[in-house]
């Protein structure tokens, strides 16, 4: 592969499973080593979206590509015009934070041909505690809907099972059978199980656990 080629990763999943928080974590991690950009492709929900984290991303030197109407009161599904720039080779790691469900990712289908020719990885994010996608069967069916709507194929699963601020080590551990079962049903590799840093406590994270920070917060939470 051309050394200047971009590496494109699409983050998809049920809305509310924690895609944005995961995308922000992956972007910050990537930015430590490589030029990084993040695309806010959530044009169906005006709350809790990547575009709200502009300052955090700017501080880390991450380029934010977001719809022109993001963070305004205009509830209009308009794609970011800069979206096409992700296909210009610039040696950048590009994370695409898709909207939730099949409805949220439909917009990405407009560039599915280009993604296919450039090459991409799509990660399917699952959360055992998220209502309506709690069983391996529901989670598997949802990915089929997402793949159908986006005309893209997932290459692996990220188990992002959590209960917000109430997440503990046990919360994550109890989700492992669900994650493994979902992976088996979909015939996809389970890439990792995320665990929020505050939930690790005195326990030793397992080798397949990925420690993440809680970046998507409520306005009344401590912003430190």
């Amino acid at each position, binding site marked *: 592969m051309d050394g200047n080629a971009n590496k494109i990763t699409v983050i998809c999943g049920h809305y*509310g499973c924690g895609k944005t928080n995961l995308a922000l974590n992956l972007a910050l991690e990537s930015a430590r080593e490589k030029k990084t950009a993040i695309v806010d492709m959530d044009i169906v929900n005006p709350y809790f979206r990547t575009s709200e984290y502009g300052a955090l991303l700017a501080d880390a030197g991450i380029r934010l590509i977001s719809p022109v109407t993001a963070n305004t009161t205009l509830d209009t599904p308009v794609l970011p015009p800069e979206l096409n720039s992700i296909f210009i080779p610039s040696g950048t790691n590009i994370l695409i934070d898709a909207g939730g469900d099949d409805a949220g990712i439909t917009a990405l289908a407009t560039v599915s041909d280009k993604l296919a020719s450039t090459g991409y990885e799509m990660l399917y994010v699952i959360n055992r505690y998220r209502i309506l996608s709690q069983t391996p069967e529901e989670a598997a069916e949802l990915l089929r809907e997402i793949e159908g709507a986006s005309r893209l194929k997932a290459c692996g699963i990220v188990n992002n099972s959590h209960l*917000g601020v109430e997440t503990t080590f046990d919360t994550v551990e109890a989700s492992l059978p669900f994650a493994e079962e979902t992976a088996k049903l979909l015939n996809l590799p389970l890439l990792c199980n995320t665990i929020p840093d505050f939930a690790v406590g005195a326990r030793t994270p397992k080798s397949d656990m990925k420690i993440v920070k809680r970046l998507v917060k409520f306005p*009344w939470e401590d912003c430190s």
Partner: protein
Amino acid sequence: MGMEKMKVLMKGNEALAEAAIQAGCHHFFGYPITPQTELAAYMAKRMPKIGGVYLQAESEIAAVNMVLGASAAGIRAMTSSSSPGISLKAEGISYMAGSDLPALIINVQRGGPGLGGIQPGQADYYQATKATGHGDFHILVYAPSTVQEMVDLVSVAFDNADKYRMPAMILADGMLGQMMEPVELPAERKTAQIEKPWAASGHQNKREHNVVNSLYLKPEVLEEKVVERFKRYDEIKKNEQRAEEYLTDDAEVILVAYGASSRVARSAVNKARESGIKAGLLRPISLWPFPVEAVRKAADTAKNLLTVEMSMGQMVDDVRLAVEGKAPVHFYGRTGGMIPTPEAVTEEIIKITEGK
């Protein structure tokens, strides 16, 4: 995989919907509007699976009148919307109040007036508690502050609406509707809802036919009807006031806030306590009836009260009425979709204690 008693992660909007289903509401009539739409979308997914009715009407006005019709037939029914949509539903709510009909109306408030914005607001307090439509009437108004409380208050609202034969509202806001928190869902209720002998559900030649109506041709009769209703309201004021107190016992400054702004106020109280200021929070849970007793009690001990709202100051009027001049009532608010920050509220607390 055992799902019993396991907590789940839900958006406020989804939690309101699921709680309504669990409370035996199988009839939903709605019309989409941000930031409430997930509620209707959730109902659209769930209702067909349980043999219920989800109907997206042609307008808010049609939806609320479908609720009126269902309720008149003795059915537990609901609708939901956000600020501008609630204004449209006002006519139907007044008609339901005038017909002594129970129903649940959910308002996931956004910035106003007019089309306003889609970010959270609390500027519909006056509308909810004073004038949800024309005429002499009240509705029950509940203000949850967590996703769990949204679940819990839905069945309280339905039951009290039935008990007192009047509409009830859950007054939420865009932040509560959109945010996700872990919740424990109640088991589906198997117990029957109360009998509704007044319902126009078919007399089968066994009784006189029931009439559900808000039109009265003789003023004497209408006056009697309204006065009877206000006697019921007095009972409600006596029995249904709800509020939560947080660190109020020794508090010199007591914040009064509901819904999302009470979450901010709670953080500010904690910050103030860290710097040695005795602050507390009084959180009205029922907005109508307003928790007059709890607020009055707060004014007995606190030197100052501070009302925090996502509006230019609406609930603060009720706080002042309850306090009866016994303590100064200050106000801090943001509006237009802005949420107060814990830092700004803490600064207000400091200013008040320093007497500035």
